[in-house]
């Protein structure tokens, strides 16, 4: 926890130092714009359960891995110095396997997972035209709400369903490159924590396991590239990588997901 706080403090220190380093206001290099994109693609998901929540945690050598369709919506209202961003992501995973260090075993076909994320972020571009024209560096704060579900079948007659709902906050470091009119690239890196409620059901004891509170940390990296194909339309591609850890009463895991989505961005 101390290192997490240190990390957060460092990010905030970065924000503060950046703010103090601002030159006098300049004419806006980037025009204000509003854009909406709808994207779809593939996302891979992996989960390892944890027995001891140390640093690093004691995690299973076997991961439960699947993949599936992800759809995402992105709304961004950006100006020369700031941006409001809203994202919704829905992903579903199937085709699970248990992957050990030396072999891969198919899970039962009914195994599945899903997640739904909604995020809002306010970002300030504190340094503009850093080193080269069009490269802006910023920092932001993020609020998120999430719902995740895992359906795991131990045998054809034994199964567990896990549902986790929560919300939290994160700090963001971001960069955008608007050096060329056709190509815009944005990268962001967010770290934060969520507080959540866990519900687990086991087919042999339905309703017997009491819901419990919990929480998790997350580290998300997003790189987005937009290529203008018409005056108000761009082809948009996003690579997302998320890593998270979850801890609740007698239930802990680490999960990762990585995906690529492609879609159209309408901007005005």
């Amino acid at each position: 926890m101390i290192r997490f706080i240190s990390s957060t403090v460092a990010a905030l220190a970065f924000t503060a130092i950046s703010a103090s380093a601002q030159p006098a206001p300049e004419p806006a290099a980037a025009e204000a714009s509003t854009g909406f994109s709808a994207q779809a693609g593939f996302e891979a998901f992996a989960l390892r359960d944890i027995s001891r929540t140390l640093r690093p945690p004691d995690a299973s050598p076997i991961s439960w891995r699947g993949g599936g369709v992800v759809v995402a919506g992105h709304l961004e209202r950006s100006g020369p110095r700031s941006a409001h961003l809203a994202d919704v992501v829905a992903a579903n995973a199937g085709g699970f396997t248990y992957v050990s260090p030396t072999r891969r075993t198919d899970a039962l076909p009914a195994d599945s997972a899903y997640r739904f994320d909604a995020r809002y972020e306010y970002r300030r571009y504190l340094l503009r035209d850093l080193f080269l024209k069009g490269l802006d560096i910023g920092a932001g704060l993020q609020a998120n709400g999430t719902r995740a579900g895992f359906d795991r079948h131990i045998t054809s007659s034994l199964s567990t369903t896990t549902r986790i709902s929560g919300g939290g906050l994160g700090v963001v470091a971001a960069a955008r490159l608007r050096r060329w009119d056709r190509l815009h690239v944005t990268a962001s890196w967010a770290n934060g924590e969520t507080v959540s409620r866990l519900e687990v059901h086991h087919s042999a004891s339905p309703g017997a396991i009491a819901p419990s509170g919990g929480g998790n940390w997350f580290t998300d990296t997003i790189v987005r590239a937009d290529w203008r194909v018409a005056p108000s339309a761009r082809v948009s591609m996003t690579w997302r990588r998320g890593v998270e850890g979850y801890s609740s009463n007698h239930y802990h895991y680490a999960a990762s997901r990585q995906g690529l989505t492609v879609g159209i961005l309408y901007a005005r």
Partner: protein
Amino acid sequence: MRDDLRVVAALAIAVSFAGCEHIYGPTSPSREWTTHESARYVLYTRPGSFAESNAAALAEVLEDQYTHTIATLRIAPGARISMFLYNSGSELDPPLPSARAGVAFPETNAVHAVSFAPLDNDLRALLTHEANHVIVQNGLGRAGTSFMNEGLASALISERFAEIGPTFLRRWVRTNRSRVPPLVDLIDDEKWSSHSNEGYRASAAFLAFLLEEYGADRLKQIYHAPSADFAGRLRDSYGRSLAELEAAWLARD
């Protein structure tokens, strides 16, 4: 330019922390394994190790335990279990806490355990205890307390190869009466210590008592109870208070 350098330095500091992932995230598992398969286990052993040369004998112990646990609890058999057998706890990051130690991962049907010579009762008890975590959670789901989770995994240890289960526990209680913690503390997760041998053994001995005297069905009724509800659920299921059952257990053992 000076301002830019300050920002770059601040960014470097932020990146050097590398975010939550590198602080809280797990390490990658080791890849140096040979495997030995039995009906319900895959034993991952280090090449040339004691565990590799004794894999058949270890599998025999573990197969017997699987049969014993599902028969005693009257639960359906679950998934195949992967047992990762290390030569030393220091091979793991984080290391296991003692020379002979293990941990279980029921969600992915896996176990970490240190397995070195000889194949004695300590090793049998360790491996069967950890396997029981996976078998029981596959069959019943997550336990409500550490008391139940850890105690039941030892209470169910088979005695086919040695008296390392209920017989051992009963003898331990008889000869260590002053070291037996009060049950009211053991059922409280806030007071549970995962490093307390007394806690493990007393929990296991009491649950073995309940299984022997009252059977598996009543035990399943209290299996999921969290600490706050445990005493009440116990009274509802057994018709006697925690203190009364504790007194009966200590009088018997």
